[in-house]
């Protein structure tokens, strides 16, 4: 007997799906913002910081890359209260996902920073820039350009990973879906709809990353002909 799909009871819960989607978008954006900041700081500390900084950074990165996100989430939500720190489910979710992304993106940023030739850094220093200014004006953009595909790939994983926050009942899309499923008994339909929403979100985010990339790595278009002409040869010798 073939199963007959019926989306009506699920779609009747559209308002809940929408608010779940919005919650997921908020959770993702906040985690991405905080996580990337942590990741960049950890990478700079590791590559260009004092010895103790490199140790702190490496310890953090290893700790968070070698434990499951779910366990990190449980530790922050169920564990921290024993140390007198009580977080709401949503706060714990943001912290855990940010720290997790921070650790993964730190490794990606680090690979980018190390890919920039030392001579670029020396040229910046020789001009009187501080090490931090060299990082900011000379190194970051070319480094980002190299790692951009892996970085945005990681961000997609983070967006999808927010669904794990449902395990501590943080409000987001998967939790909303689970509730709908348990009340409508339409498991297949519910989770198909969730999948469709997630896939739409990742495509929208990837489009945004593409736009950001266009802006970050923008270059003015050379005036027609000038580039080709100068490469042909030494007519400038006289100038």
């Amino acid at each position, binding site marked *: 007997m073939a199963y007959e799909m019926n989306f009506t009871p699920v779609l009747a819960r559209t308002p809940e799906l929408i608010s779940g989607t919005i919650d997921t978008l908020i959770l993702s954006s906040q985690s991405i913002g905080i996580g990337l900041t942590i990741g960049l700081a950890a990478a700079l500390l590791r590559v260009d910081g004092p010895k103790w900084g490199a140790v702190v950074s490496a310890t953090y990165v290893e700790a968070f890359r070698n434990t499951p996100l779910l366990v990190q989430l449980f530790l922050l939500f169920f564990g921290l209260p024993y140390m007198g720190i009580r977080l709401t489910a949503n706060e714990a979710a943001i912290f855990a996902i940010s720290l997790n992304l921070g650790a993964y993106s730190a490794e990606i940023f680090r690979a980018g920073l190390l890919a920039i030739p030392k001579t670029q850094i020396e040229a910046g220093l020789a001009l*009187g820039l501080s090490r931090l200014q060299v990082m900011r004006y000379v190194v970051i953009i070319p480094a980002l350009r190299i790692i951009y595909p892996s970085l945005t790939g990681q961000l997609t994983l983070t967006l999808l990973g927010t669904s794990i926050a449902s395990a501590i009942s943080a409000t987001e899309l998967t939790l909303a879906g689970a509730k709908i499923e348990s009340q409508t008994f339409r498991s297949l339909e519910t989770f198909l709809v969730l999948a469709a929403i997630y896939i739409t979100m990742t495509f929208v985010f990837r489009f945004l990353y593409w736009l950001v990339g266009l802006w970050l790595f923008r270059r003015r278009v*050379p005036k027609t002909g000038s580039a080709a002409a100068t490469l042909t040869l030494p007519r400038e*010798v006289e100038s």
Partner: protein
Amino acid sequence: MPALRIENLKKSYGNVPVLKGINLAVENGDVVAVIGRSGSGKSTMLRCINGLEPFQEGTIEVVGHKLDQSRANLRELRKEVGMVFQSYNLFPHLSVAENITLAPRVVKGLPRDEGSALVREVLSRVGLAEKADAYPDELSGGQQQRVAIARSLAMKPKVMLFDEVTSALDPELTGEVLKTIAQLAEAGMTMVLVTHEMGFARRVATRTVFMHQGTVWEEGKSEEIFTHPKTPELKNFIAPDLK
């Protein structure tokens, strides 16, 4: 007071001594060519002067900034000491104009609206006034090197260091860069240039320093050094085939 004074500079990598007690004084307006065999320590000395390499002993004083093992005042010193590298090292993501104005803006707080005048000024000194909006990868090697010189000039350095700035260039592009440097020399810029271009050293440099095995082996007026070398090592270096 000399523009640059190096006293008893010693540096080693691990336990391999590379500079074994360098003494050198450069007066304002001097153009000093540094010649010597590969591995004699020319680049290392140059890099010590603006603090890119730490050293173990001795002092370096450049335009009033004293540099020793403590490496204090490095940035103040670098503001006044320009350096041009063999591999140009332009910043690929910035246009020529942005390459030039980056340090003046960030380090000296140059107002945005004064940037283009500065760009025009330094680019015209290297003969590339029309390239302000180009990107480094749109330029030939010789042009990139001249932009690198312009970028350094934009900080209004009192001393400029050049490390084999034509070595990466095809012979036909070497001339344009050497010509730019010769014009700077005429304008009175104090310069120390490591070079393998003997003819250029002889013509443009007021003094020439011959480095050998990590020491200043022989130095003097360029004309003297090239016409009457005293040590056999220098004789052999300048004209090995005359033996």
